[in-house]
């Protein structure tokens, strides 16, 4: 009997901890968004930090990531166009390519990339700051950690996801045009017709919402997980691990939800 009650207590505690961290994540997301859109938050220091953060999370990786995305897009486009031609479905190749790449693969790959590069770094930084009591120290000296430490990171990550998604998607569209119609401009009306079929209002909205959600998740979850780290140094790697796993599931959940929204 005590074993069972013990077990139940532990399960309950774990459940509460999980729900607490989700609540903290959502709360933080709300606070950050509110802070990011209120002009009063931006002073000279915040601007400097935000700009540096954008530079390090978005500008620095722009060229290599764009090259990689171009390669990935090129290969996938070739596969889809080739397969479609084999089955006599060339008419649908372009639509398939656009739906596959621009709507699904590229936003997800971008989010995963930024998660791996910046998300894990943010999680580690915040966890270490928390373990070393630096967050409390900052708060004690009257610094608003939300607007000086967390919001810049979230903005940088979000902008990174949005801009990389936009740039790689447009690049993929250009590549798709070239792969399907070749190096000539006369098929633009055809191309536009297919684009018009694919991108209706709902799809456009869902891409934007999805990219925004990806950007928010990629940074808010690591920050929240870092803030929830117990103050023991050996918990830092565990915190990063948990943050990354949670981030992965959230990204997948957003992806599945957007698919369900579009096709069901």
């Amino acid at each position, binding site marked *: 009997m005590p074993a069972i009650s013990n077990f139940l207590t532990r399960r309950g505690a774990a459940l509460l901890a999980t729900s607490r961290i989700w609540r903290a994540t959502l709360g933080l997301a709300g606070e950050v968004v509110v802070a990011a859109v209120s002009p009063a938050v931006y002073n000279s220091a915040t601007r400097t930090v935000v700009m540096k953060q954008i530079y390090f999370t978005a500008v620095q990786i722009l060229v290599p990531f764009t090259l990689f995305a171009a390669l990935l897009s090129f290969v996938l486009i070739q596969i889809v166009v080739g397969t479609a031609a084999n089955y006599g479905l060339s008419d649908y190749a372009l639509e398939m390519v656009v739906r596959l790449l621009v709507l699904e693969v590229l936003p997800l790959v971008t989010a995963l990339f930024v998660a791996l590069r910046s998300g894990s770094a943010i999680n580690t930084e915040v966890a270490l700051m928390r373990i070393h009591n630096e967050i409390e120290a900052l708060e004690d000296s009257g610094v608003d950690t939300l607007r000086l430490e967390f919001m810049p990171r979230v903005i940088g990550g979000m902008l990174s996801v949005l801009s990389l998604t936009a740039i790689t998607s447009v690049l993929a569209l250009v590549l798709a045009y070239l792969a399907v119609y070749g190096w000539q401009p006369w098929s633009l009306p055809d191309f536009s017709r297919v684009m018009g*079929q694919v991108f209706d209002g709902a799809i456009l909205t869902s891409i934007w919402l999805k990219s925004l959600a990806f950007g928010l998740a990629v940074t808010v979850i690591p920050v929240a997980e870092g803030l929830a780290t117990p103050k023991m140094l050996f918990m830092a790697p565990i915190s990063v691990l948990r943050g990354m796993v949670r981030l992965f599931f959230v990204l997948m959940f957003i992806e599945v939800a957007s698919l369900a929204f579009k096709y069901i």
Partner: protein
Amino acid sequence: MERASLSASPPPPPRAPLIKNLEFKIGLLLALTVLLGAAFIGYALYARGAFQVSHTLVLTAEDVEGVSVGMPISFSGFPIGKVRRLHLMDDGKVRIELAIPREDARWLRQSSVFTLEKAIVGGARIKAHTTNLQDAALEDGAVRPLITGDATKDIPVLIEKVKSILANVDNMTAAGAPINQTLGHVETVTGRMAGDYGLLQGVMGSPEKADKVVKALDRANTLLTSLNGVSLKVDGVLGKADTRLFGQDGVMDQAQQSVAKVNALLGDVRESLKKADAILANAQTASKDVTKITGNVAEATTDMARLRLEIDDSVRKVNHLINEINKKWPFARDVEIKTP
């Protein structure tokens, strides 16, 4: 006060910060992102025809299964507009509103006919047919009936036909089907014909049997020559001993018996040669058929042509054989084996 004195001190702060052109780079990134996003939305709107001045065309139909909003209407295979709206009217008919961009509206005339075609694979298609492009232009908001040409209606009939054809093909290709057996026979016969004894083997069924026939013929030939010799001798003997041996119980009686035996033997030989002849006649007709078949096939394949040459060769051999027999055997008919 304090700060004023500080900023007055001579060395200026470095104007080369950690990252060159930080502001510019970030500005560029932001501008690029916003520009791409806005341009893309603009392009999507353009692609959806938001900036196009379009004419409205209304089509009415009994049944619009397969028609969806956004579906193109094509003219000569080119999309010239798309379905904007579908709704059911009070009388149970369906009203299809199409948006036709103004520059494409010139393809539609008063006499234009609109059809809905449902293909077996892929969705339905709305097509516009205009025979007289000199006709008056179709006005904006015109209402026209949509004629449904349903390809799927013909499918059951088509499938029945296909089924019977398939059944025939099935019968033909099934194991034990007549054509299969025929082909199998042809194969064995031609296979044998390709052997050492050619057509004869083909008719007789195996090289051994053909060998036997040839040997039998050879033996018959030798027998005939020796019989000739024997009968000459017998004649001579008879001539010499004509008077002397013509008595009862004399040599003559025995000789007569032996001659009778020789005659019987000759009869047997004749019978057997007749049989051989019959066989050869059969072979003739058979080879005619075979060559007819192979002749047809030869038109299609070069291999068959080679086979045919072999058969011709075999037939020639048989002809030769028959000629040989003819030379030696006077009662042979005028036998001729030809390939068509």
